[in-house]
């Protein structure tokens, strides 16, 4: 017979999860309701469900093409941020150099100016380099991210130095310590950065809006925004687009989650 505490805990978790799912469920339900609209509050009732909105979505936009674009950009962003971020994290956490605090502070400073302000100067910079309307220009602002560097630095700092020292005594240089000891041990943090890097790139709107002109470079948020008319909007189609947009991230998250859960048995020091 489970204790009261367990039952309460279970109820809280399930109730909480149900609440958390409401917006997503509402999105799905609106997308399968004929002429679905978002007026009138969330509903779990579906009258005459239909996939018409999805058909309309696929007619209106080259969904597979733009989803693929978004996916490649997000995957590339994630890879770059993991590589550059983990290397910088190791540098800050394990190497000693003069002005380290200042440099880290400068890294953090890059997070403190909002994108809304950077968009115009960055666009002019891209135009000067003749890189506007290219995949590289889409990727550029997210090749490195101080957010990832920060999170990974915290993770590396939390690792006991004994492990490094043991390896160094065995003759390993920084690169080997980094790749064979540090990286495997910060897998949860890497998975976390991967999720946020992917999400950040996937949902990015303002920068792609400004820098992309050609339809073959269009990303998902840009494509979905064209579904909103000046005076009216087909909400069921927009919601179908939202569902289309959420699913890949949910998949990425589920996949990364396994690595976040993956236990680490690492205190082999004693």
């Amino acid at each position, binding site marked *: 017979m489970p204790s009261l505490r367990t039952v309460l805990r279970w109820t*809280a*978790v399930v109730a909480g*999860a149900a609440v*958390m799912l409401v*917006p*997503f469920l*509402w*999105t799905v339900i609106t997308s399968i309701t004929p002429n679905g609209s978002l007026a009138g*509050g*969330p509903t779990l009732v579906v009258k005459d469900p239909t996939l018409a909105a999805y058909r309309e979505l696929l007619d209106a936009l080259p969904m597979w093409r733009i989803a693929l674009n978004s996916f490649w950009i997000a995957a590339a962003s994630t890879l*770059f941020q993991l590589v*550059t971020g983990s*290397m910088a994290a*190791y*540098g800050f956490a394990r*190497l*000693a*150099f003069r002005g380290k605090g200042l*440099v880290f*502070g*400068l*890294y*953090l400073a*890059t*997070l*403190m*100016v909002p994108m*809304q*302000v*950077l968009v*115009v*100067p960055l666009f*002019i*910079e891209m135009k000067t380099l003749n890189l506007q309307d290219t995949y590289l220009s889409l990727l*550029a602002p997210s090749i*490195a991210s101080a957010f990832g*560097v*920060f*999170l990974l630095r*915290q*993770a590396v*700092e*939390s*690792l006991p130095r004994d492990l490094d020292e043991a390896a160094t005594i065995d003759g390993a240089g*920084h690169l080997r310590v*980094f790749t064979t000891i540090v990286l495997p041990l910060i897998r*949860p*943090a890497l998975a*976390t950065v991967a*999720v*946020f890097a992917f*999400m950040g790139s996937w949902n990015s709107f303002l920068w792609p809006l400004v820098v992309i002109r050609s339809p073959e470079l269009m990303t998902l948020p840009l494509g979905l925004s064209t579904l909103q008319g000046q005076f009216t909007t087909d909400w069921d189609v927009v919601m179908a687009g939202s569902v289309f947009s*959420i699913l890949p991230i*949910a998949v990425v998250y589920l996949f990364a*989650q396994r690595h*976040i*859960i*993956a236990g*680490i048995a*690492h205190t082999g020091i004693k």
Partner: protein
Amino acid sequence: MSRRGWRNRGWVLFFLLPSAIPLVLFTAVPMVSSLWVSLHRWNLISPMEWVGVDNYTHLLRDPATRDVFAHTLLYCAGYLPLVFAGGLGLALLLNQRMPGRAFFRAAYFLPVVTSWVVVALVWKWLLNPNSGLVNSLLGALGAPQPGWWTDPAWALPAVILASAWKDLGFVMVIMLAGLQAIPQDVLEAARTDGAGAWQRFWRVTLPLLSPSTFFVVVISLINGFQVFDQVYVMTGGGPSGSSQVVVGQIYDLTFRYGRAGEASALSWILFAVILLITAVQVRGQRRWVHYA
């Protein structure tokens, strides 16, 4: 410099340049450009006009600037405790073995990836002053029913509630990763030493979580000060500008009012504020953040 010194510098460059170069090229350079823009008057479509520090003095004297900073500060003050306590609680809850753990974690993370358009509407419905669930419950309990979206005093708290709720999953994920890094034998040792669950949490878990906590607090504040999307979608800064935040003002100034110079100046004032607060935290971390 000694050979060791050169080698060390080599390693520093090796590990830092891959991130430093893109950050400088694609973030620092535009930042400096925006600083230059802040010394001009510019509506984006005609050439810039030099005005020196006029934008700054004008903004610092304008009561509207004080208002948007006050709102932003209030937002952070309300948002951070809620999202941290909630996210940490969720992480602790879902760190234990239970069937369907992965499903629950995904469920709690889903709002983080759901677009604000839908989440905003859910919360507008929830907090509807007349027919919303929350006010109906409050009414049933005999408590006062705030006007939420329609009341200038309650619009910002409504945005705070919705934002904290949406980001619970974010904090949960970070804290889960942090909890995973806590060696089990330390907790075991504490248990065999007779420490109760609360004591274990307070004396062992929380201190060992401090690097993650530090990260969450710093990032949440940096992001909190730049809050924009949810305010734009939920209230548009209203009613009567009572929920307008700094970046909302920056956006309006740049893209709707054609005052990009002022917008840049405002963003640098914001930068100074965020920098100060972050510096204070980084300085203070020695006192409470325990690294291995």
